[in-house]
């Protein structure tokens, strides 16, 4: 799905001048990897990141001004950052919508085949998190697994956002060092 060598094709060029198109094609060649990396970090989803990256190029192509863009890379990432903020806001709205009825017939659902290997992964993560100070693993689980933002965690844990960020990055580095990346992400 997102093997390293596989990049999305540059978007179809439908508007703007030849120069503009060439400029954006160059941006794509040079910065697409970091753009997707940036959006993936923002959205915690590679699929969403790739989709939004396409949207960024389309927006740049659609800009009215025909002159070459002065600081194209900065603009590329600013548009991306804004689109990411919109997407995160949209997700929050969706998360606040009434949830599906919780499924209390859990025992009747067969657990999928890959459950065993998935559990192995979780065992490793759990073992890694147990090696960390309680606050560090707590902040990390709240952010990465529960999906809460730093502000909310800071409030709950009575810490500054900066400390939350510190705990989360420590835990992430620790887990990354302890867990072998799987072949198929």
């Amino acid at each position, binding site marked *: 799905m997102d093997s390293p060598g596989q990049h999305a094709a540059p978007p179809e060029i439908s508007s703007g001048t030849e120069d503009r198109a060439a400029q954006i094609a160059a941006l794509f060649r040079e910065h697409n*990897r*970091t753009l997707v*990396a*940036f959006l*993936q*970090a*923002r959205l*915690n*989803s*590679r699929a969403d990141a790739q989709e939004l990256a396409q949207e960024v190029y389309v927006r740049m192509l659609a800009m009215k001004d025909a002159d070459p863009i002065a600081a194209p*890379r*900065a603009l590329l*990432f*600013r548009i991306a*950052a804004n689109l990411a*903020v919109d997407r995160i806001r949209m997700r929050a709205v969706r998360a606040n919508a009434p949830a599906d009825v919780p499924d*209390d017939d*859990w*025992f009747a659902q067969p*657990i999928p085949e890959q459950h*065993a290997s*998935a*559990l192995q*992964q*979780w*065992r490793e*993560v*759990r073992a890694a*998190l*147990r090696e*960390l*100070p*309680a606050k*560090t*693993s*707590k902040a*990390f*689980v709240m952010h*990465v*697994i*529960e999906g809460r933002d*730093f*502000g909310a965690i800071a409030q709950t844990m009575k810490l500054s*956002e900066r400390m939350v*960020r*510190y705990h*989360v*990055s*420590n*835990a*992430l*580095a*620790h*887990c*990354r*060092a302890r*867990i072998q*990346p*799987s072949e198929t*992400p």
Partner: protein
Amino acid sequence: MMAMTFSGAGDRVTQTASQWWARLRAEDPSDHTIEQWLAWMEEDEAHARAFEEVSRLSQRLGQADSHAREAFVSEFVGAAERRVRWPLWLGAVAASLLVAVLGGRMLDSMSRLQAQPYASDVGQNRDLALPDGTRVALGGASSITASYADDLRKIELREGEAFFNVTHERRPFEVVAGPVLIRDLGTAFNVRRTGDRVAVAVTEGRVRVTPPGGADALEAAAGQQVLYDPRHGVSIGPIAVDDATAWRGRRLEFVNEPLFVVVASINRYSRRPVQIADERVGALTFTGTVRVDAIDRWVEALPRVFPVQVSAFGDHVVLSSAEQH
């Protein structure tokens, strides 16, 4: 920020990559932050790769299924304040001094390790979530106690019936049912206890069942039932997985069960308990279904299939041998 001290594992590049990742996760990173990050990313291919790897790990964790999610939250979020971490340098002597100083608080934290009881009423099934995310369905009039220590999760089935869907983790998961010890080996299983007679039906994965007296342990897989009976010892046989948990749908399924087991089971659902007047009746074997909402009718019909007599009293029913009269 990049100079902060660090105590966990991981090389410097991974640590820096994680710090950048966390920094980009904040509300809305400024253009300046993004510029700095880009400069770092482009400085070295290893930087970009390390960043992509921590990002991928985070995404994988973010996609945890609800089972795993609950287990993580209950262990690391719910319980974080409770976890007691002893500094490594603290030897036994220092620890004993600390007991004197912190006595009260320590006793408090130790008492949390004490057995937590759970019980259900007659006629009521009850679903529970244990602290590790393990799910337990208790049958009617059943009770368990859960004792979670650092190295073992131990459940005692005191009476009745319970279905366990065990969350897998480092600590072994054991169920003690009277004389029988059941150890989870990656599993969902049902345990029914009737006095010292214990039936363990595996619906998923495997369990190891150790009967009393040091006899050999048996391993049972999904679709198998281990039965321990004080008179006949231990045996293993096939069972329909659906039958083993049919009680959750308020149907009790029995295959060649002695009537005393059947009656003990229905009594957990009946307001009017059934008593067995003599052993011969209790030893009759029954195969079939009893619907929880139609226990009275089932009891009334018994004399048609068994040589028994039913005597109804105000608050109980007596089953006796038909020949006695």
